Every structure is written in structure tokens, then in C-alpha cells.
């Protein structure tokens, strides 16, 4: 399970963007999911994300992410109605509870809880897409100019992680043959058994770290200023999607300034679509956000586009 990176390169168009472009795009998506309150807007974002995740062939991974989000979502949906007193439409008059006060559950609070859940799904999906769309190596590479040593440490630790998991499993087997039964005994006894396991590993990994350091030193690490080897080259598609992300952000900011995308739940929930500008703003923002998808589809069906981006 821990021997492969989560990201798998499938050679898809959406995976071919420059990491900076992807980060900018996903950052805008994340911002919007936090800025927007209107359920319609959030739903459209979710739809867009679903299409993108289909584009990176990631429905299976998405399912995993949504499942992980469900627990969080349930908590959020349960907590909200319990503490919110602002709703006007009371659907259930509860008893008095110490600390919390009177447990009146309102329609609006339920509604808000549901929309919060929706927002959570959007955020989960943004991260799911991030995991599927961009190679973490490339992201690290992007940051190594700013924080070379941190990136190097992260890379080294990431590279050692699968080895360590393997080693731990092997040491566990070795321990079993020396008579340690990890499944037996009280919790305290088990912790002590695992302590032996971790002790071996800790000692070995500290010893290994000295050898790794030696190999780094032999390759002139720390002998002067480091430069950065960069493998990523921006292409027209990256400028296009980067520009589109910025435009989407501006459009959204302008829209929010004029109230498009905001939404009041209390005391009575707003109408979903109150006026034409609300729809228009949504349309404009979505159009810009669709750019990578449009490029992806265009690439599939049109040689000309493919050759130009």
C-alpha cells in the first residue's frame, strides 16, 4: 500500500500542465469554494470538479475521498443545527439541555448544515483533483528555488518512506521469530512489544542517516550555493490556464463585491437565484474555470489545437 505514490502518471492531458499552472488553478477553486455561500454556486463547482476528475480518470480515487469526507460532513451537519438559534422556521422543539440551552432545531440550520456538507465535498474534491493531476515531485521542484533544503528533506524522507515501511514489516517478522507475539497481551504489553520494534528501527535509521549524509557530502553537498535542476517547461496551455484562473478570480471577486454568490441563511434562507446578474456572474466564472477542460477536449478532437498548445 505504501510503495507507490498516490499520484500515478497516466499520460493524460490534464496531467501535462506545469505545476505552477495547476497550483494556481486549484488555488482559485479552493478560494471560490470558501468564498461562495450560494448552494447553486457550490453545486456548479462540484459539477466542474466531477468533470475534471473524470478527465484524469479518477472516479475511484474520488470515491475514497468522498468517503473520508462523509464522517466530517456528518459531524458538521449534526453540530450546526444544535448550536444555531438564528433560524426562523422551527421544525422541532427540543428539551432544555445544560450548557447548550434549548434544543430547537430550525429548518434554516439544517439547510446550512447541508450546504456546509456540500462545501466540504467541494474542498475534498479539489484536493482529490490535486492528488491526481500533479506529480508531487514537480511541485517540490517548483518550491526548491525558494526553500531548497526543506524540499530536499521532504524528498529524501519521501524516498525513504517505502523502504522504512518495508523494513518495519521485516523487523516485525524477525521479532516474531524471536518469540514476540504482537497480538497477545494487554494494551500495555503490546505497546512494550511494539517498542522493541521501534527501537530497532530508530537505531537503524539513525545509523543509516549517517551513511546517507556521507554520500551527500561526497557529492559536494554543502560546498557552496546550490542551483536548481528544473524539469518543467511551461507551454502555451499553461499560460492559457493560468490566465483563465486569474480572470476567474477577478470575475468572482467582482461578482462577490456586487453580491453574486453570497447567500444568507438566517433568519430565512434566500432564494437560490434572486436575479439575472447572479446567473451571469456564475456563468462567467465557470467559463474561465472550464478552460483546462476545454483545452483537454479540444486536444482530443482537434489536431490543430493539439499542435498549438
Amino acid at each position, binding site marked *: 500500500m505504501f*510503495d*507507490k*505514490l498516490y499520484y500515478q*502518471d497516466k499520460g493524460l492531458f490534464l496531467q501535462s500542465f506545469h505545476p505552477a499552472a495547476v497550483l494556481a488553478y486549484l488555488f482559485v477553486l479552493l478560494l471560490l469554494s470558501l468564498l461562495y455561500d450560494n448552494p447553486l454556486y457550490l453545486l456548479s463547482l462540484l459539477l466542474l470538479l466531477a468533470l475534471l476528475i473524470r478527465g484524469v480518470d479518477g472516479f475511484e480515487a474520488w470515491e475514497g475521498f468522498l468517503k473520508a469526507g462523509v464522517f466530517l460532513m456528518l459531524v458538521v451537519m449534526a453540530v450546526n443545527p444544535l448550536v444555531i438559534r438564528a433560524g426562523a422556521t422551527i421544525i422541532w422543539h427540543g428539551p432544555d439541555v445544560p450548557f447548550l440551552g434549548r434544543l430547537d432545531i430550525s429548518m434554516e440550520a439544517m439547510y446550512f448544515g447541508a450546504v456546509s456538507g456540500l462545501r466540504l465535498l467541494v474542498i475534498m474534491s479539489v484536493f482529490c483533483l490535486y492528488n491526481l493531476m500533479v506529480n*508531487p*515531485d514537480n511541485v*517540490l*521542484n517548483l518550491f526548491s528555488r525558494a526553500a531548497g533544503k526543506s524540499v*530536499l528533506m521532504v*524528498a*529524501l524522507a*519521501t*524516498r*525513504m*518512506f*517505502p*523502504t522504512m515501511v518495508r*523494513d518495519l514489516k*521485516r*523487523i516485525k*517478522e*524477525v521479532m*516474531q*521469530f*524471536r*518469540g*514476540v*507475539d504482537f497480538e497477545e497481551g494487554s494494551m500495555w504489553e503490546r505497546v512494550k512489544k511494539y517498542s*522493541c520494534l521501534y*527501537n*530497532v528501527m530508530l*537505531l*537503524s535509521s539513525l*545509523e*543509516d542517516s549517517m*551513511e*546517507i*549524509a*556521507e*554520500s*551527500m*557530502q*561526497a*557529492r*559536494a*553537498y*554543502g*560546498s*557552496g*550555493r*546550490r*542551483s*536548481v*535542476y*528544473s*524539469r518543467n517547461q511551461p507551454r502555451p496551455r499553461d499560460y492559457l490556464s493560468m490566465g483563465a484562473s486569474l480572470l476567474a478570480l477577478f470575475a468572482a471577486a467582482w461578482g462577490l463585491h456586487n453580491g453574486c454568490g453570497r447567500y444568507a441563511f438566517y433568519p430565512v434562507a434566500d432564494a437560490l437565484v434572486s436575479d439575472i446578474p447572479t446567473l451571469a456572474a456564475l456563468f462567467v466564472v465557470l467559463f474561465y474555470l472550464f478552460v483546462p477542460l476545454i483545452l483537454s477536449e479540444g486536444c482530443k478532437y482537434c489536431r490543430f489545437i493539439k499542435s498549438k498548445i
Partner: protein
Amino acid sequence: MPLYKVENLTYYYPEAEKAALKDITLIIEEGEFILVAGGSGSGKSSLARALAGLIPDFYGGRVGGKVYFQGQDIRTMDRGKLAREVGMVFQDPEKQIVQTHVEAEIAFGLENLGLDNEEMQRRVAEVVCFMDLKQIRGAFTANLSGGQKQKLALASVLAMQPRVLVLDEPTSQLDPVSAEDILNLVKRLNEEMGFTVIMIEQRLDRCYHLADRVLLMEKGRIACDGSAREVARKTSRDGAPFLPPVARFFAGIEAPSLPLTVKEGRKLLRSCIIIERDMVLRPAAGKVGDSPADLAARGSAVCLKNLWFTYTGGQEVLKDVSLDVGEGEFVAVLGENGAGKSTMLRHLTGLLRPDRGTVQVLGKDVGRNGFKEIRRHTAYLSQNPNDYLFQDTVEDELLFTLKNFGLKDTSVVDEMLDRFRLVQYRRTNPRDLSSGERQRVALASVLVTSPGLIILDEPTRGVDFRLKAELGRFLRHETVKGRTVIVVTHDVEFAAEYAARIVMMSSGRVVSDGEKHEVLGKSVFYSPQLGKMCRGICDGVLTFSEARERIYPLLGNGAAADEGQGVMM
């Protein structure tokens, strides 16, 4: 001007009382291929590190004498400049790779030198092309095989375009195929590209003939220095542990020349042996192995019947494997990487359960009850002795195992320490010991329960000649006592010398199984060097003692008169 000039170099590691290097004086010319041989603890690695500038820069400690590189004192040289000139590859590929991405790893040294991106791109491309790394250039480094990792480590050093390559046992952790790959590359670098190569190796049969010059080290000093043949001649007089088997064999007789390779050996053997037709085809001498009847009389220690196994990933690794090992047998399991050796091992230790088939170990059905049934009677030594060491003292390591099995009798500890020559380390922290001693501690810590079955996974990796012989003799002694030994190894020489029976596996099947002469004698590639040399001339010779016994009498004109004095083992 010589490339290296070492003058009276003496070195102590921090807090060490014994000198690692004693009064070394040495001159190395450009373009030489130098092989450094010697037992563990002889100062080989320290010398290599001193030449690469890591001693004393990285280690600290006390130094006397000077190392000059192209006339300049190495300690006054800028580290970046030195790294551009001298590249070093280490023993363990796991501990040299620092990046997640193959290309980034190759570029690591270049980044440290502060080269610009264009230059780095060019050099990375060059190295990828030269070392044929195209298939893996975008791979995640953690998932490469050991051989690929070592190749990558070499690539990363080569990208810095050094003129000198220092290699510290670069093949000791690799399977034979990958090892050959690395050695061929090194040879090409030396011959075609003029690199100066300084290589430390334990497995001399693979590389002795490649070297122009051999340095034999002993107790921190250079005991012998000269061309490969000169050193072979000089050392052949005293036991010759640091010669390839072919040379060692001929060292015992006053041969007109000293062959270093199988090819030369065969030539010489043909020229001086009196060939008798019936000799050639005669099967192996009678003393090896037991007769079938003898075997049948013993109980069965391990019995695998029609084993099939597929990993959850969908890879079918065992296909109808059957194996019957009697008590007191010494079995070596050979085969390429991914042949299913370790998967089979995990079945007979109960760590995996078969999809189909049965596993019986020491009369108990392991497939059903798992390892719990048999672990008390099974000793398992993994590839890495460090997996065993975490207590404060050596004694505690042994007591730990005893305590876990609820065994009260601790007198066995003394006996074990004595047998493994660890008595003086009783109160020492096992992590302060050398690697050979660590292996002995690990072995002692699993053998305190006096198990009936001893399983070892690659026990000869990175172990020097002497310790290997010691281990082999010990295991053989155990089988005499009725214990069963199963060794999974790539080391054909070890298997041929000490095992009685060989099981060869390939792509999940047992392809050959039988007495060692039967299996190894038939094989061209899975054969020890002496077997290769004697093949077709005097079949059925695998080990040194057999060769001596069978061939010396055949040599005409009394060439073998002094066989007793020069040869050990």
C-alpha cells in the same frame, strides 16, 4: 606528476584507540585500475574515504601524514573542486539515493556544484544515455531494484564528470547479474574513457582480472602492492585467501604461470593435466552427500506440497512448488531475483499462507496455524543483522529471545557467546560492533533456543572471505547435529562449498533440485569458478578441496608434490 601521492598517512576514527590506517605511503598514476583487497577491518574503506577526502573531513578523528591530489594537499582543496575530480560510490544502494525522481537524483551533485540549468540538462541527458537509464528516467527512486539503484548512484556520481572513481564494494549488496552490469560499466569507464578507478571488492572472482594493480591491505597497512599477477604470485605463498578461486587453485602447485580467469585456467589445466578418458566422465567422488537410503531413514523437516501462491496484486509467484527437506540437510536455494525464493521462504516460516497446497514444517501444518506453531523451533536470520540489535548489551540480545519463549535456562547464553567468539563483547552495545560481529550476534540471538530448522536469507552479503568460511563451517556443523539448514542465496561459491543440496528456482517453479554436483555440475552459468574451469576436463569438481583431491594426482611430473603446505581449506 602522479595523480595521488599519499605520504605516511595514519588515521584514527574519533574515540578509537586503534589506528584505521597506519603509515600508508602510496602513489597512484592517472588511468590506473586499482583493486583494493583485504579482510573486513583491514582499512580498505578508510583508505578509499581518505582518497575521496571524506576522511577526515566528514569523520573527524586524528590524522597524521598527507594526501596530495595532483600535487595539492587534499585538505586545503575546496570541497566542490574535489568533488568535481573524485567521485565515490558506496556499498549500499539504499543509502545513497536522496531524491524521489531519477533525473533529480542524477542532478543532485550538479545542483550542489551550482551549475546552471542548461549545463545540468546536458549532463543528465548524457549520463542517462551512456548508462542506458531511459526506461527509468521518470521513475520513483524508492521502487527501483537494488541493481538499478546502484546504477543510479553511479550515474549521479558520473554526472559530476570526475576523473577518479572510488568504489567501496559497489556490488556487495547486488545479485550477480546486476553486479556484472556495474563491473562492466566500471571497466568501460576505465578502458574507454580513461577514468582512474580505485575499487574495493570482496568477490574477487568477478573483478581480479580487471585490475592493473592490486593493493592488499591488512591491519591498516598495505601488505602487498603490485600488478595483479605480481600480487597473486606474492600472496599465493601464504594461504592466498585474497585470490580468485582459479588462481588459488594453481597457487597450490608450482604452475608455470598463475592464471586469473577461467579461460586461462582451462588452458593451463589442459596443458599440464594427463587426460584419461574415463576420468573425465567419472561422476563425483563418493564422500559427498548421503545415499538416498540414508536420507529416507531421517524424518522430514520441511515438506511443501504443490504450493501455489498469488499476491493480492495479482502476481502469481509460486507455481506448483514441491520440496521435501530431510532433517540434517543443508539446502541452498538459488535463483534470479523474483524467482519466488523469498516467497517460498515466507511460506515455510508461516508468514504467508498458500492459496493451494500444504506446508509442513517439523511435522506441523504451518499453512493452517501460521508461524506460531513452529517459531519456537525455527531460527530465521534476515538479510540485515541490524534487524536484531536493540538491546544495550550483547548478552541482553540473547536473553531477550530466551525470555520471550519462557526459557529459564540461561546457561546456554554462555555457551553461545563462547561458540560465536563473543565472550569479550558480552557487555558491549551490539551497535558498537563491526558488521561481521553484528551478524554473529544476530545469529546467536536466534540460535539460543536450539531450533531444529535454521533459515538464512542472503547471509553472505557484504561478508568477507574469512567470515563466510566461518559461517559455512558453523552451519555445516549444525547439520551434523541433526539440524536442518536452508539458505537462500545468490552466492554460488558459498552454496557449492558448503551446501549438500541445491534447489534452483525460476519464475515461481523449482526447476532443479538435487545433490549439489548433480545440479551445479550440469549448469554452465550457475556454477562456481572452479566448476567452470574443470567442466569437461574433470567433471564433478565444485569446491577447492575436491579440486585438490581429484586434480592434483592427475598432474604429471610431480607438480603437486607440495600440496600439503601451501593450501588451506
